[in-house]
């Protein structure tokens, strides 16, 4: 059986700096940094597919380009070159979404993407009510009916275990775990087919972590949303991801089924990563 991927990424390249003659072919680099001209090759030749309903894990050490790749896909940052294709986007399936106009990119963000940032400050408006934060995404997706939006927000907040009597409170009054859950509720509000999760559990205590992970797993099972989960925590990846990509110095060094990668790592770095697990 042949299945078409929901999101195809091809040769995504992101560099900070213009590069020089010494690093043009990615020679003479220190990790992903050119000591001669100071150019950083944050993402190099990234290609992968995301299929409907699956969770794709991305692991790697800090500075390996995980978050930069995520920002590029979510249009928070411009790519240097490369392509991404979304099935069911505003253009045709052959349209490279990085070449769309900023309005069309915004459409994709508002209708097809959800994003949960590591730091809730980036994903939430801290001085607006929680229900308002969720409504913002619904408004952006074209909803103009207050009571409908309130209902949707309420059921979402209930799903993420935020007591409804606190729904009109601003997220800045909430604990970190609650903020993260509000952010997840917001990201889910317009039923996006693709959800990005960037280090969602980092910085949360263990019981809250378990709570949030449970929630993500449940959402994926019930709604069939495809997710890309970035984490440096292998336990999180083991629990969530079906397939995993390992990144090092801006490149993909290994990819495969999560069990395979964790039980039988091939690349020297992955072996080190897996065996350094406490």
């Amino acid at each position: 059986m042949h299945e078409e991927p929901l999101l195809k990424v091809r040769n995504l390249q992101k560099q900070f700096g213009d590069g020089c003659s010494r690093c043009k072919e990615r020679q003479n680099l220190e990790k992903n940094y050119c000591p001669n001209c100071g150019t950083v090759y944050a993402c190099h030749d990234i290609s992968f597919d995301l299929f409907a309903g699956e969770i794709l894990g991305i692991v790697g050490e800090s500075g390996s380009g995980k978050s930069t790749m995520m920002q590029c896909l979510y249009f928070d940052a411009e790519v240097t070159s490369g392509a991404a294709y979304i099935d069911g986007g505003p253009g045709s399936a052959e349209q490279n979404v990085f070449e769309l106009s900023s309005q069309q990119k915004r459409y994709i963000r508002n209708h097809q993407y959800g994003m949960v940032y590591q730091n809730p400050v980036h994903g939430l408006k801290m001085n607006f009510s929680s229900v308002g934060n969720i409504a913002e995404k619904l408004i952006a997706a074209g909803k103009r009916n207050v009571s409908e939006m309130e209902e949707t927000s309420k059921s979402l907040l209930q799903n993420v275990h935020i007591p409804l009597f606190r729904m009109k409170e601003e997220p800045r009054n909430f604990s970190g775990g609650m903020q993260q859950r509000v952010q997840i509720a917001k990201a889910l509000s317009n039923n996006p087919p693709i959800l990005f999760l960037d280090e969602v559990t980092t910085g949360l205590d263990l019981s809250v972590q378990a709570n949030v992970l449970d929630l993500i797993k449940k959402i994926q099972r019930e709604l069939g949303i495809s997710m890309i989960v970035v984490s440096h925590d292998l336990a999180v990846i083991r629990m969530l991801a079906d397939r995993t990509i390992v990144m090092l110095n801006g490149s993909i060094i290994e990819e495969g089924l999560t069990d395979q990668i964790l039980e039988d790592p091939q690349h020297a770095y992955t072996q080190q990563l897996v065996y350094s697990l406490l």
Partner: protein
Amino acid sequence: MKTKSHFAFFDEGSKKEIRRSILKAIAIPGYQVPFASREMPIARGWGTGGLQITLSIIGKNDVLKVIDQGADESVNAVSIKKLVQSTTGVELVERTQEASIIQSRHRIPEVPLTPEQILVLQVPEPEPLRRVEKSAYKTKILHSENDYSGAWLMLFEQIMKYGRTATGADHPVYVNNRYVMAPSPIPRYDNPKMHQSEALILLGAGREKKIYAIPPYTDVESLAFDDYPFAVETFTGKSCHLCGAEDVFLDELVDPATNETIYQCNDTSYCIERLNKKEEVEVETSHA
């Protein structure tokens, strides 16, 4: 040595620059055009935006009316009038119908404006998205990408908190189905007067250095949710204690003698005209 001052205070270069910004603003209804706001002999925040527009469009044959929250005789209106008159020598009026340029702070006159008139509004904060997004760079991008969820979100928050939209003034509007615009702090009561207005409406923000416009016969729609329709302030059962008018925007006052709440026309020239007419009728009927 006494040098002869320029007509309308400004040198010709300044007027030309401001006029060019005005033309651009008219060409793109609701779009905030940046301009080089001049240092004025009144403080920023006291109507310098409106004043600069008035001074650059005024001609010798124009007739000027200046109002400050409906009143022709408040200090701010009077000093602006004096400045314009002493530098141009134009005629000043209070009757709305007689004016060709009406500069106003926070009100649109009760008498409907005509195609021969220009309304100049003073604006403290031209950016309708400022309260959700502090960065001017980002709000400009939001305007260009037609993303006004922030403006809607503010109304949504008000409904969540107070059960209705609680904009006292400056309720955001869609202009020509494209740009969301701050209509200046006019009461919601005046928002519908902007829709398909026969007169040209120019808005100037001196401190924020922005000029924008609503050309005649342009669609202006106040933002409202499907289940919370836009509503103007109502004064049912209340009337002006001087002229008895009912279908106007009323000020709520407390009678210092009786401590009772009384209502009075906010538009003073409209009120006075009604009073004068009443008197005429009285004279004609009882002393004929």
